[in-house]
């Protein structure tokens, strides 16, 4: 029966939200009378041992969660999770990388939406730098990518950015796509 406990633990752990007793029984193909005591035993075990997380009963189901005491620390980690990008940030970064030097207006023209906030956050993440001002009325700022950008993507220099043609060549359907090379360096 030890095996059943391990299995219950594995199911609750791997579920992507609180797992109800009914669902658990269905998955295990075991009656409630057999499964419920196992879950309760598990909850007790976690309660008694000094672990970093516990088994909680939440929203009609069971779920492992870290102890509330640790929340301030864990939030620190959550904030740092920013090595990932939203689709919008990625698009903006891509436009700047391939089209630099580029103004905010040009980015917005290509994306079709306001991009000020995203440019600002990319600047804050040191992925962009300001290359100067464009010689047109209003003298808007010109953006380009930074050294950190190259480091982040593991590029030696901007010439290392793949041209779209190289990807198009992988896929016969895309072969007719525009062969746009990064402009300038």
């Amino acid at each position, binding site marked *: 029966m030890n095996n059943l406990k391990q299995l219950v633990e594995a199911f609750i752990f791997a579920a992507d939200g609180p797992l109800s007793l009914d669902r658990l029984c269905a998955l295990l193909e075991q009656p409630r009378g057999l499964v419920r005591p196992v879950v309760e035993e598990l909850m007790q075990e976690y309660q008694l041992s000094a672990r970093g997380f516990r088994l909680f009963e939440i929203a009609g189901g069971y779920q492992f969660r870290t102890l509330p005491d640790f929340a301030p620390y864990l939030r620190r980690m959550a904030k740092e999770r920013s090595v990932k990008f939203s689709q919008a940030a990625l698009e903006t970064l891509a436009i700047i990388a*391939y089209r630099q030097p580029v103004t905010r207006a040009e980015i917005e023209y290509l994306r079709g939406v306001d991009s000020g906030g995203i440019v600002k956050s990319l600047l804050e993440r040191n992925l962009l730098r300001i290359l100067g001002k464009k010689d047109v009325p209003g003298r808007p700022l010109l953006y380009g990518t930074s050294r950190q950008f190259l480091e982040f993507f593991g590029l030696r220099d901007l010439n290392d950015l793949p041209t779209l043609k190289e990807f198009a060549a992988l896929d016969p359907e895309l072969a007719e796509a*525009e062969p746009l090379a990064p402009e300038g360096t």
Partner: protein
Amino acid sequence: MPIQILLENFSGPLDLLLHLIKTNEMDIYDIRIMEITEQYLSIIEQMKQLDLDVAGEFLLMAATLMHIKSRMLLPSSEEIEEEEGEDPRAELVRRLLEYQRYKEAARLFENMPQLQRDYFTGLVRAADYLELEDAADEEITVGIYQLAEAFHQVLSNRPKEVFHEVVRESLSVAQYIRRLSARLAERKRMAFHECFSPEASRIELVVTFLAMLELVKMRMINIEQMKEFSEIWLTLVVAPEQLDQLSAVEDALGYE
């Protein structure tokens, strides 16, 4: 003996060859090339008779096999041995061994425990209950590929009116007519593709093309092609001095 083989069961010609070597219990270092070539060709022939597509790679290998066979048939005088040095089968053997190795590795990979098949882990569990501001915004792990792909997307979703707008703003067709006719006056005859600079943006290409059409319409140039798909030639059909008249018509073009 008819061999029932379907090419699609093989990931490529090397895979098929390995199979033949194995079923004939041959030593990979000493392939009986006549036998193998014969069997290989008969399989390809069968496929053709069944009206099945035979990928070019399989045909290429057939040619390679026949070439090796012909070299094996050459009298093996010692001089040739010394000159050529290598067994004609050597490169094929090397490729087969190397391929066999990765085929084996592929089998190992298949059996290695895989995430979401053998290993499970709760995904992004902290976001569930730590009340993160951006938990809802789906984020993606990126590499250069994703970056390039994003740019590709932007370009393909680009607003349609882009041409008109930019044409009006910065590249006037009139300007390109002047540029193109000046080059023609100098050279008299130009190939179609020479009119487009390889660095030109898509917009420039479009404007150059429009300029070309305008010149044809004004009967300033002639366009000819000897046969289908051959080079198209542009010839100036007026005296160079007459090009001066161009500026007069410019305003009438309506491109501004």
